[in-house]
C-alpha cells in the first residue's frame, strides 16, 4: 500500500487531523509516523510537555495503521492498551514506530515505541490489542 493512499486515509479521520501527524513508512507489519507539536497537545502548561493521553493516542493511531493501513470506514477496533511513560515529551516533533508482533485471524498485538531525539531514548512504549473481526 503506497504512502499517499495511506495518508489520504489518515486525513479522513477527524481525530487523526486533530493529532496532526504524517505517515513516513508503512510496511506489511510496521508503520512509522511523525506528529507535529501543537499547543492543543500540551498536558503540562508550565513545562509545555505533551499530554500523556496525546502520546498514547498518537501511538494508538500509528498501531492501528500498522495493522490495517487500508481501513475502509474507520480504523481497526481497539481492545485495550498499556503504556509506559519513560521520559517527558518535550515541545517538538514526536516519532512513533509500531510493529505488529502477532496478527491472527481475530486479534492483533502491536508494540509501539515513541521518541524525539533518538529511538534509544524512548518517550513512551506501548502494547496495543486490536480486534480484526
Amino acid at each position: 500500500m503506497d504512502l499517499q493512499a495511506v495518508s489520504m486515509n489518515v486525513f479522513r479521520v477527524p481525530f487523526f487531523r486533530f493529532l496532526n501527524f504524517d505517515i513516513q513508512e508503512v510496511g506489511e507489519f510496521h508503520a512509522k509516523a511523525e506528529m507535529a507539536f501543537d499547543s492543543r497537545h500540551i498536558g503540562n502548561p508550565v513545562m509545555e510537555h505533551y499530554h500523556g493521553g496525546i502520546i498514547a493516542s498518537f501511538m494508538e493511531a500509528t498501531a492501528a495503521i500498522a495493522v490495517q493501513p487500508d481501513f475502509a470506514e474507520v480504523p481497526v477496533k481497539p481492545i485495550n492498551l498499556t503504556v509506559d511513560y519513560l521520559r517527558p515529551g518535550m515541545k517538538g516533533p514526536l516519532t512513533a514506530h509500531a510493529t505488529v508482533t502477532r496478527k491472527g485471524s481475530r486479534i492483533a498485538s502491536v508494540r509501539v515505541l515513541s521518541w524525539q531525539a533518538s529511538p534509544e531514548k524512548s518517550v513512551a512504549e506501548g502494547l496495543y490489542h486490536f480486534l480484526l473481526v
Partner: protein
Amino acid sequence: MPDLSQQKLDQIAQMWNMRGKGLITQMALKIEEVSTEGVLVRMPFNPDFCVDSDQTLLHGGILTALLDSVFGLANFVAIEGVSTMATLDLRVDYLRAAHSRADVIVRAHCYRQTRHIAFNSGSIWFDNHVGDEIARGTASFALTRGETSLFEEMTRGKA
C-alpha cells in the same frame, strides 16, 4: 465523606480556570463532583475527537487522555504536598464502541498513595448511560513532594 477545605476547592477552581492552552482546554472539561474520595468530570461531545466521517464514534485515544487528565485531578485533590506528578504507566480497556454524541462522564479516584507513588482507577460512560461503561482504566503516577505545591508551580509567573 471527607470534605475538602474551602482553600483547596478555591485552588482547584483557580487552577482549572487558568489551565490556558493545552488539551484539557480542548476537552472543555467540567468538574461535577470533587472530594478526596474521587472526582466526577464531564466532557462535552466534540466532533474533532471522532474517527468516522459522520462524527458519532469517539476515538479510544481521547478516552485514554480523559482518564489520564482526571487521574491527575483526583491525585491533586487527594494528596497533600505534591510538587509534581508524572504518569508512570496507564492501562485502558475499551469495553464497548464509544458510539454517541452524548457528553462523556468520567469518575476517577486515587485508591492508594505512598510517599512516591499514587495508584488510580477510573471509569467512563455516556451521560444517562451509567450502566453501559465504555472504558475503564488504571494508572500509576510518580509523585515528587516538596515545598512548592503543584498549584504554586502552575500559578507562578502567571500573575
